């Protein structure tokens, strides 16, 4: 019955699409846009709500089962019956996918509610909700699929939904290009992903999770598989994750994706789609746990991405761009955890990040709504008095992402840092620590510049600044509560012991049946114990907050001076380290050149050949025309010549 989890959004999308987006309702039933929007919004949100309720129901069911039996499988039909390669449309609801499903459906529901308010006056209201439902449908297929091809279907499907939603306001060319860029960059990652799936099938003879993973943990089977193959599988799958989850070097699409509506940024590019890569790698933990090389590659790239994105975020002036780079950075954290083998920690951060990043994005959407679509934080300031609910929830989100103790972000981030350090990746730990400082810095900077201080709001929009309607503020409040309390499902043991509780890391215990090889090794001698590590992360966060406070609240002129002093660095950071320009130079321009050459070849050579044949036919016809001149003598001559030729042939043969 778990198929209904994905069927509800599909039905919602079909209803919205056929009735409203196509204009059918408008033609047949009347012209009241308000009613149309209401019904459309209710259908879409209701569909996701039903999915959420179902997911919760099955989650509770799972809890009632034995930990080692926690999976519900439902096969619907055989999709590809091709001899050895038989793929069926099979769904699996186990601990790992239940976590993802709950996050997707519940946060999705909140964002649907928010969107009803945010997209209220947009003409493409129904189309928007159709696309959103399509997205939820494919994302659920991705996490609930029981085999790699089905996951890939979801993978591609969310890529499609992302493209449609980023370029939602396609009348503006730049926005359309952003959608196209997202899809193409994604595609590059997908190529690696497909190759990984091929390799898996080649080695394991199946693409079904149960079959593959059973063989992968069997030491007899694995002794016959060369280590480099497992590394190759791991790295190819990671390429897919790099594309989908915007790691270096394929992160360039995510900041551009901010061209889409803000709730889309919240749902797709913060909470769910970009985390698909992390989910996929957590699902495939057996490969990574058996390949130290792949793990090193993953952690290194993740760490580099985290700090790179953070260095860009501190100079950005668009509220959504700051959050976009922040997402890239936090995804780096998730992949760092997965890279060292702490899958549960990575997933935990995925969940808490979903809470506070969605909160931050929705809050920024509220700000943009209040500011009549202005997104530049240099034109904001002092908004706290005008839009208090947004301000407070945004502050909670900021503190959560910075890692302030007792909020959700603190628990998940700290667990990651501890895991990285414990398994001996000291340099990466230092990089991650620096990124903590930077994260706190840019987030607090964002908050202060937007909500505090003197108001720099232009006169023209100052009087229109108003708090958002309830449809938008209630999800903000819900997410704020989750950001505060959400961390307590994963309190590490050493902290729980302080208050006399054992085994407090409920999250890790819950997810562990999906983690098939225990990879918790402690490498080397440690200088720092648990508490010291926690202290480091708290200290880093505090440092960042203090610096931000100093620069943007106490001495507002200081950032300008610093920027002038280090101008080249500042400009490089502001221009995203010129990565886009580099790609354009290396890839896009040669490719355009090739395309132009191909087009010219097509025009001149191929069309030329075709036209040339036509011209030749015409010339021949003109030449032959002279044979019908009407001059009898030439007719007679030709006949004589013809007869002579025939005679010659007869004689010669």
């Amino acid at each position, binding site marked *: 019955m778990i198929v209904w989890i994905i069927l509800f959004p599909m039905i919602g999308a079909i209803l919205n699409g056929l009735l409203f987006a196509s204009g059918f309702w408008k033609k047949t039933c009347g012209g009241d846009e308000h009613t149309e929007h209401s019904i459309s919004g209710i259908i879409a949100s209701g569909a996701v709500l039903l999915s959420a309720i179902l997911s919760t129901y099955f989650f509770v069911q799972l809890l009632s089962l034995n930990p080692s039996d926690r999976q519900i499988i439902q096969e619907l039909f055989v999709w590809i019956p091709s001899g050895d390669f038989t793929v069926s449309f099979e769904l699996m609801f186990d601990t790992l996918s239940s976590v993802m499903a709950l996050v997707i459906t519940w946060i999705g529901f909140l964002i649907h509610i928010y969107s009803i308010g945010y997209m209220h006056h947009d003409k493409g209201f129904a189309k928007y909700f159709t696309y959103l439902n399509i997205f939820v449908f494919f994302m659920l297929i991705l996490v609930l699929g029981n085999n790699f091809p089905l996951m890939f279907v979801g993978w591609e499907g969310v890529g499609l939904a992302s493209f449609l939603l980023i370029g939602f306001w396609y009348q503006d060319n730049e926005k359309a290009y952003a959608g196209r860029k997202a899809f193409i960059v994604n595609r590059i990652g997908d190529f690696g992903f497909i190759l990984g799936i091929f390799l898996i099938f080649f080695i394991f003879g199946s693409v079904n999770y149960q079959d593959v993973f059973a063989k992968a943990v069997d030491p007899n089977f694995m002794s016959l598989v060369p280590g480099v193959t497992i590394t190759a599988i791991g790295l190819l799958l990671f390429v897919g994750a790099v594309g989908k989850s915007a790691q270096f070097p394929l992160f360039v699409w995510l900041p551009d994706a901010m061209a889409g509506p803000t709730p889309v940024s919240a749902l797709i590019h913060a909470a769910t789609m970009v985390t698909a890569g992390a989910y996929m790698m957590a699902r495939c933990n057996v490969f990574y746990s058996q390949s130290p090389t792949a793990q090193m590659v993953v952690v290194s790239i993740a760490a580099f991405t985290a700090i790179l994105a953070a260095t860009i975020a501190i100079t950005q002036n668009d509220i959504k761009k700051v959050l976009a780079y922040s997402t890239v950075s936090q995804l780096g954290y998730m992949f760092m955890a997965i890279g060292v083998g702490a899958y549960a920690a990575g997933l935990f951060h995925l969940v808490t990040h979903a809470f506070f990043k969605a909160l931050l994005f929705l809050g920024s959407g509220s700000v943009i709504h209040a500011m009549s679509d202005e997104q530049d934080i240099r034109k904001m300031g002092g908004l706290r008095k005008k839009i208090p609910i947004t301000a407070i929830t945004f502050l909670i989100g900021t503190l959560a992402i910075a890692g302030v103790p007792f909020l959700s972000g603190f628990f998940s981030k700290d667990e990651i840092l501890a895991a990285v350090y414990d398994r001996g990746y000291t340099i990466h730990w230092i990089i991650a620590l620096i990124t903590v400082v930077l994260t706190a810095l840019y987030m607090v900077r964002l908050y202060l510049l937007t909500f505090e201080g003197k108001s720099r709001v232009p006169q023209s929009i100052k009087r229109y600044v108003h708090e958002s309607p309830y449809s938008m503020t209630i999800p903000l409040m819900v997410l704020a509560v989750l950001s505060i309390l959400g961390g307590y499902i994963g309190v590490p043991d050493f902290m729980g012991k302080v208050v006399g509780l054992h085994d407090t890391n409920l999250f890790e215990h819950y997810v562990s049946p999906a983690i098939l090889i225990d990879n918790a090794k402690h490498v080397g001698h440690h200088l720092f114990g648990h508490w010291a590590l926690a202290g480091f992360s708290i200290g880093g966060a505090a440092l960042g907050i203090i610096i931000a406070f100093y620069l943007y609240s106490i001495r507002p002129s200081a950032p300008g001076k610093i920027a002038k002093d280090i101008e080249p660095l500042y400009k490089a950071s502001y221009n995203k380290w010129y990565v886009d320009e580099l790609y354009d130079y290396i890839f896009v321009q040669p490719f355009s050149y090739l395309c132009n050459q191909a087009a010219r070849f097509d025009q001149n050579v191929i069309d030329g050949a075709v036209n040339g044949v036509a011209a030749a036919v015409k010339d021949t016809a003109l030449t032959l025309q002279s044979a019908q001149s009407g001059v009898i003598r030439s007719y007679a001559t030709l006949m004589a010549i013809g007869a002579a030729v025939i*005679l010659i042939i007869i*004689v*010669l043969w």
Partner: protein
Amino acid sequence: METVVFYVFAALALAGGLMVISFKNPVSSALSLVLTLFSTAVLFVLLLAHFVAVIQILVYAGAIMILFLFTVMFLNLKSEALKFESKHLGFKVSALLVILLFVGYFASLGFKKGLFLSNTSVSEMEGFGTVQGVGTTLFIDYLLPFELTSILILVAIIGVVVIAKKRAR
């Protein structure tokens, strides 16, 4: 003896043919054609085709050529009408020679293939080439074509009358 006669009259026939195609004046061409026809008739006699030779002189050289000459003189061609004759004479003569060479070559090819029988080993029927022989063959074996030929002549006569009739004004 036979050889001499053959070559002489063959030469005459060829000369006549060449003159037909070269003279500007149609009367001269007609008279050359008569020469050719006569020579061919003699060659027919050499081939023991006596009846046919006489028929050729009577009908061809007699009736047909008279018809030609009659028409030529009837039309009373002015000398301007004859002025449009050929330029590039040298070109045409050389073209003719080339064609003749061609013909000679192919004829010799044909000989090598042994297409033709020689003069000697032929059993001749009774009255070969005489009126009696022609008559026998014509009225016994080829009676139908004979009748059809007469119808052809009838048609030709009617056609001529129709074509040459003056249009009613």
